[in-house]
């Protein structure tokens, strides 16, 4: 372990051959699920991003294969039901999925085949992390990667509830939550994500967020020059921007890409549940419990006296029954 890995600026380079130390450390964490007051990291890593240029994707699924290969997952072999998605959905073993949509452009009457690589967006403001009740099960690094730490995960599925993009999947085998890691284990040693590296058309590219935005702007300009007037970047501000983002040829209508949310944000219901419900709920329960305990100890109890015991005897003996005389 002579050298620390550089922070990767591209997915294209080949790995160094000498042993190399990880450069994505526990101390680089900026947010931890169910944990307040995370210590401020000493250094700020360069923000990274993976850019998915939908207009360049040919739907070959090399990225899916690379992801399976790198993460050593074993997605189940499913039935062919006559659609291109394979598997049919994201699963605990399939962190990324090409989603295919046949869309008729109302302006040109052309059939367009929209292909979107789905997977974790690595939100700057991650709903999964906000919802998670288990300390340390989800972390966010200062370079923007949101990662699930499986040994702390309890399998409750709250991350599913919190995520605006319907990404995490809970394994039925080990009851832990899985999603794209942005290849944090590759980034840690100076490598770009496996999917980006495998992509034959460079529809997936990886680098610093800054570089990726610049590249995306070039791509948008190119698309516009070729008639895609609504081409644009999908880097949704509702979740603070994302570290996986898209170039879309129809950026005015994200939802035509198999339901990509138009304006994703952490649901107000989730905010209310994790926010005021918790603070107010805890306060009310605490006051009630302590109040009842103190009152129970100090207040005058409601006691039965000897006179009442005698009255009861009289009543029973006289058989003053059935609510008769009062």
């Amino acid at each position, binding site marked *: 372990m002579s050298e620390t890995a550089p922070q990767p600026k591209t997915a294209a380079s080949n790995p160094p051959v000498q042993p190399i130390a990880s450069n994505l450390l526990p101390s680089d964490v900026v947010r931890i699920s169910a*944990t307040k007051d995370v210590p401020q990291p000493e250094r700020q890593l360069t923000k990274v991003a993976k850019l998915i240029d939908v207009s360049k994707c040919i739907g070959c699924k090399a990225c899916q294969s690379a992801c399976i290969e790198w993460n050593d997952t074993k997605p189940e072999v499913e039935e062919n039901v006559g659609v291109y998605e394979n598997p049919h959905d994201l699963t605990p073993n399939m962190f990324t999925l090409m989603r295919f949509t046949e869309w008729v452009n109302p302006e040109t009457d052309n059939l367009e085949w929209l292909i979107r690589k789905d997977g974790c967006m690595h939100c700057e403001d991650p709903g999964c992390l906000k919802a998670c009740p288990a300390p340390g099960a989800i972390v966010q690094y200062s370079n923007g990667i949101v990662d699930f730490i499986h040994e702390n995960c309890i399998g409750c599925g709250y991350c599913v*509830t919190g995520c605006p993009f319907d990404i995490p999947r809970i394994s039925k085998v080990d009851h832990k939550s899985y999603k794209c890691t942005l290849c944090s284990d590759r980034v840690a040693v100076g490598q770009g994500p496996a999917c980006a590296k495998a992509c034959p058309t460079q529809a997936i590219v990886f680098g610093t967020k800054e570089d990726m935005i610049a590249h995306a702007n070039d791509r948008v300009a190119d698309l516009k020059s070729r008639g895609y007037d609504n081409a644009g970047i999908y880097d949704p501000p509702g979740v603070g921007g994302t570290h996986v983002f898209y170039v879309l040829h129809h950026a005015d209508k994200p939802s035509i890409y198999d339901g990509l949310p138009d304006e994703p944000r952490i649901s107000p*219901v989730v905010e209310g549940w994790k926010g005021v419900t918790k603070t107010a709920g805890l306060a*009310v329960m605490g006051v009630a419990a302590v109040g*009842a305990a103190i009152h129970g100890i100090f207040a005058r109890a*409601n006691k*039965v006296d000897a006179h009442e015991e005698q009255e009861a005897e009289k009543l029973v003996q006289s*058989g003053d029954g*059935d*609510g008769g005389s009062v």
Partner: protein
Amino acid sequence: MARPLYSEPGDRIESIHPVTVSRYRGFIRANHWITAITLILLLISGLAFFHPSLYFLTGLFGGGQNARWLHPVIGVVLFVSFMVMFIQLWRLNLPTPDDRKWLSQIGDVVKGNEENLPELGKYNAGQKFIFWGMTILIVVLIVSGVMIWEQFFGELVTIPTRRWAVLTHSLAAVAIILVFILHVYAAFWTRGTLRAMTRGTVTGGWAYRHHRKWLRELAGRRQKGPAE
């Protein structure tokens, strides 16, 4: 024989000198303890997910994963046990005109001036409130709980519905914990009540003070009732 108005057919005066009255038989007491214990276990495990500062409570269940799968299973046990209790108790928990009077004099209730209050059957309006409050909240908790039960019902409802369900579940949990505190507090404050759930009997004086119509009915039944 017509149903008694203020008591269960099985309630009876056990002895006269001093008076002791049987309020709950063995089965219902055992079942009540199942309800109580499961509610406490649910409250502890649920609160562990509710707030990070209470997450350590999962340790009592052998860790987060165990607490996560146990909680809903215990919830089903609670639901079944409570429903059995519901079938046994609902009739005498229906509201009566006396309840309104009792509630309008809640000040006397709190001060313990029971001589000013109307005579009551087996339950007062406070006890009825707890009964119906628990009933409604347990139904809300099981319905919303199933919707967020990832292990077996992960696909049952859409994610937006699931968000409402988890919010509802946590609000209902807070509410049932408040009702539970009130229930335990009232049972403790009203001295002589707890033995109704331990031994199953109360003293005559207790019945005379708090539930005199109930006592009267039992006394009348004892006089003319079927020979024992």
